[in-house]
């Protein structure tokens, strides 16, 4: 019975459309979650991060304009190199900026002595390790697929 239904041309077509719709949904959802980037912080600062995000734009934290956590401690920003794809995506998608804008701001701070640039690490693994070790730190990870 089922199989005969299945072979009815009109049902077959509907089913195919439905299946492809489900697949498309799954694909969209999975690709979103697999590649989503998120901000991470030292375990002690999780509550502080929520407050920080309510009060300030994250872009201003990574641009080293917002320098302190709500509790007054200095924020330690950790980033990946400018040419790292994850960095480029994080800056564009999460901060709504371009990497060269951040670089300009950081260069100004670094080479006039009026501030410090974020610490740079080479990989997501290093990022996770350093953020976990460093109090008051903030960084980002790609929470999807494993990375090199």
């Amino acid at each position, binding site marked *: 019975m089922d199989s005969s239904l299945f072979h009815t041309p009109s049902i077959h077509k509907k089913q195919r459309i439905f299946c492809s719709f489900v697949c498309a949904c799954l694909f969209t959802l999975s690709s979103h979650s697999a590649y989503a980037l998120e901000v991470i912080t030292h375990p002690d600062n999780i509550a502080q991060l929520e407050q920080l995000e309510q009060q300030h734009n994250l872009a201003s934290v990574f641009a080293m304009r917002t320098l302190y956590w709500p509790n007054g401690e200095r924020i330690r920003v950790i980033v990946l190199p400018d040419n790292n794809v994850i960095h480029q995506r994080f800056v564009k998608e999460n901060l709504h900026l371009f990497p060269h804008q951040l670089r300009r701001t950081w*260069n100004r701070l670094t*080479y006039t002595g009026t501030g410090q640039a974020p610490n740079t690490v080479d990989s997501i693994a290093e990022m996770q390790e350093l953020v976990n070790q460093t109090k008051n730190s903030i960084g980002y990870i790609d929470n999807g697929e494993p990375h090199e």
Partner: protein
Amino acid sequence: MVSLMNKFTLTGLTFLCCLLLSITHVAAAENASTASNTLENDDFKWSDYKKPWMDDVQIHGFLSQGLFSTTGNNVYGKSKDSVSAGSTEIGLNISYQALNNVSFAIQGLYRRAGESTGSEGKVSLDFAFIDYTFFRHQAGRFGVRAGRVKNPWGLYNETRDVAATHPTIFLPLAYYERSRALYVSMDGGQFYSDYNTRAGNFSFKLNLGLTNPADKELLRAITLDPTIQGNLTSDLSVLANLNYEIDNGKYIFAFSYANLNLGYDGQTLDPYKDLTAKIDSFMLSAQYNGERLSLTAEYALQWNQFNQLPNPFVPGATFDSSPVSEHWYVQAGYRILDNLQATLRYDSSVQDINDRKGVDFSQNPFSLPAHLMFTRDIVFGMRWDITPAWMLRAEYHRVHGSSTVSAFDNPNLIQQAEDWNIYALQLAYQF
């Protein structure tokens, strides 16, 4: 009631115990860090104490080397119909965030720039100051920096020696090398204030102090006299900058103002001994930084007042001069790739807006040509950021006029060419 009392006492006691414990813990940690027999304490790890301190120290540096070939006039050494490698810049800085609101920063600079520094180059202290943020709130801060601070003049002056921070090898004419000493830094202090709003970020800096104008290039530019013996000195000067950025630098607008005062230090018989100079100047800056396209424009007007210049024909007599110079440029940059940028700029500079073509000037008895009074420059450059640290760029300039060339690289003013070309290459590294 009793149970409530007990609860209260219990809580109080627990609190006291915790406090005692934490105090002894802190004391033990302090002992551990100072006592010589630290290794006996199992809990102690040197790295726990060292690390936070190391995290607060940053060391950065940069270097660049240029290669130049020109027609007509020299840049950075003997580049005319030849190749010169006369521009080298090496900088190293260290900054220490000592407390949440106190930091120290110092930068040393080695610089070779053609004949004006000689082939051996010069070492200088670029900046060195203590920074104290005395008030901060959720949206901003106020603070002071005391020592030698960089002058926030226009968009590029603060980091003028760091190749990677500007789009072309040669800075726009408004920042020309001849007046570098006048604008580069100030010994004194800087008051600063930042205010971040949803509509953008405001930043204000006010520098007060003495400039370091004891630079022959600047003196020669003012007097056009190759025999001059003394040195320019600085009197109290002011430089201020108000900067407004939307979307963290997507749009930048800035207003800079300078009031710079100079004196002259020479022998008693020196004809220039009473020379003083007062320079009032402002610069307007605007920049757009899109994903691919960047657009920049700056306009500067400078009122110069030179007093007691010696009259070359009447011994003992002096005269005053007050030219108003004007500099402006428009510049477009396009990122063909993330690490490959093309830049096109039209740049103009005149020494005196009342004599834009140098016609009046050319009536001088020394037959100095009119084109010493202006420069127009069309620049095309390509910049390749090989890695975040290494950068290579090349550019071509078509130049009309020679008001901005170095009198050290081109000592014969009469023979300076009016129309000339610059071909330049530069390799730079930063960390």
